[in-house]
């Protein structure tokens, strides 16, 4: 098990001082993410113009893993195209469930600090929730829950 490396300084720092935390007036996409199992919820607002995520923020109540994941996610997708963001969403999810090796070929960069989550099945959803919610926002789905049957990612995440 790799918990020690999970609660490392980067994650603790993003939990303490989350980036892009707050509200966005001119957002044209937003979504709410919930994990009813632990009560965590977060809200993502972003501005998508000409295929680029020009601005993105989040707000919510959650554990450190979820908050740090959201913070690092917003920092990573800001300024990227929608297509690039979708690639990161896909890769992050695969890393979290152990289907992508952190030292393999991918675009995750420092987001690999979350790779230890795959050894903690009960916490995988905490790390994925923000990505999950971003995916919903980009695809104009207003709310998602980690427990919804029609949640686009739930099926492949299973009961993780």
């Amino acid at each position, binding site marked *: *098990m790799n*918990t*020690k490396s*999970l*609660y490392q300084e980067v994650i*603790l720092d993003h*939990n303490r001082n989350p980036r892009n935390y707050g509200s966005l007036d001119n957002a044209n996409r937003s979504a709410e993410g919930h994990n009813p*199992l*632990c*009560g*965590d919820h977060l809200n993502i607002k972003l501005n998508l113009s000409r295929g680029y995520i020009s601005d993105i923020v989040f707000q919510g*109540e*959650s*554990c*450190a*893993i979820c908050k740090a994941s959201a913070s690092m996610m917003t920092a990573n997708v800001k300024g990227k195209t929608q297509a690039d963001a979708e690639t990161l969403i896909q890769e992050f999810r695969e890393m979290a469930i152990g289907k992508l090796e952190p030292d393999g070929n991918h675009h995750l960069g420092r987001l690999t600090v979350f790779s230890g989550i795959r050894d*903690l099945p009960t*916490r995988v959803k*905490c790390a994925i929730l923000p990505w999950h919610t971003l995916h919903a926002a980009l695809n104009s789905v207003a709310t998602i829950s980690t427990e919804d049957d029609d949640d686009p990612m739930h099926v492949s995440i299973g009961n993780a």
Partner: protein
Amino acid sequence: MKLVESSLKPLSTSMFNVEHIRTDFPILKLKIDGKPLVYLDNAASSQMPQPVIDRMVKYQTMQHANINRAVHYLSETATTEYEESRRRLKRFINASEDREVIFTSGTTDAINLVAHGYGRKFIGSGDEIILTTLEHHSNIVPWQMLAEENGAKIRVVPINDTGELLIEKYKQLFNKHTKFVGVTHVSNALGTVNPIKQMIEFAHARGVPVLVDGAQAAPHMKIDVQDLDCDFYTFSGHKLCGPTGIGILYGKAALLERMQPFKGGGDMIASVTFEKTTYNTIPHKFEAGTPPIAAAIGFSAAIDYLSAINMSMIAAYERDLINYATEQMRHMPGIRIIGDATEKVAVLSFAIDGVHPHDIGTLLNQEGIAVRTGHHCAQPVMQHFKVPATTRASFAFYNSMNEVDALISGIQKVQKIFS
């Protein structure tokens, strides 16, 4: 055995040989990530001592067949052992008759049985069921399902900020529509022990029967259903060092006889034709199909094990444990104990400032410490304290004072990481 009131490692602790008891539990020797297991999730499920494991192995290797069916040796042996288990459980709770003890798959199953067998028959539209804020979801949802179906209403006894029921409010909830009371003996989320004897007496004075959810009480104290005078009492084997998949419903014979069956099938009938089925007598009327025979036998071995240690000794020792743990936690900065009732069992729910319970749970696990984080299937309690979740350390008689110390230093580590 005299109860000792002072809190720090008092006399009763030394009279109770916890190290000796621990050797009965093979699982306690486990290492988690190289650290000795500190198992503090006993309210969710307790561990099984070797004599209980051995008893189940003996049944499975030398005594197993289906019960109540055949004349051969094994079937007779299994039937005898199964009924002997019922008798021991009867004695454990001091019921007056064997037939008042029904084997169920657990507490949840037992409450559903009563909601169906009693509720559907005797509670109707406009009738009221009193429950409390401290209930586990399993003593809420079956009643809500009933209410949704037949138009009955649910009334809820509130709690104060120490996590105790407001008994005056309870009394005020009664009116001519009140038909049933469901109350937990001990809160699983907070450890509060409810004054059920007084509550039962009040309900009975108004002709209202009471179901007591004893899932969190039976592991920690002597239960006497005749003294309590409860109409129904239920608990699960897996929280008393027994196996999963078994529990009991105690019910007063007169009530059980008037109830309708819950599940239909074999064993619960006296005779069947396609025109009419006559039901068997209690307890068999409520035990349709092949029961978990090995689990029932394991369950009775578990209560024998606990009785040999002595439930009063267990209660006294656990009181020392919780007093010691509470005393230490109370003085730690940044810790909030949730649920501080005067009467409570060895359950400690708490919050650490600025740290989410799930992070606490994961980090304590890293120290080998097993606690439960979440809403504990008691969301109304969480709503009262305005928290989505808590961290809960729940103790058993096989936990040591050293394990309390391990918990405390684990919490300090968590605080340091998040400082």
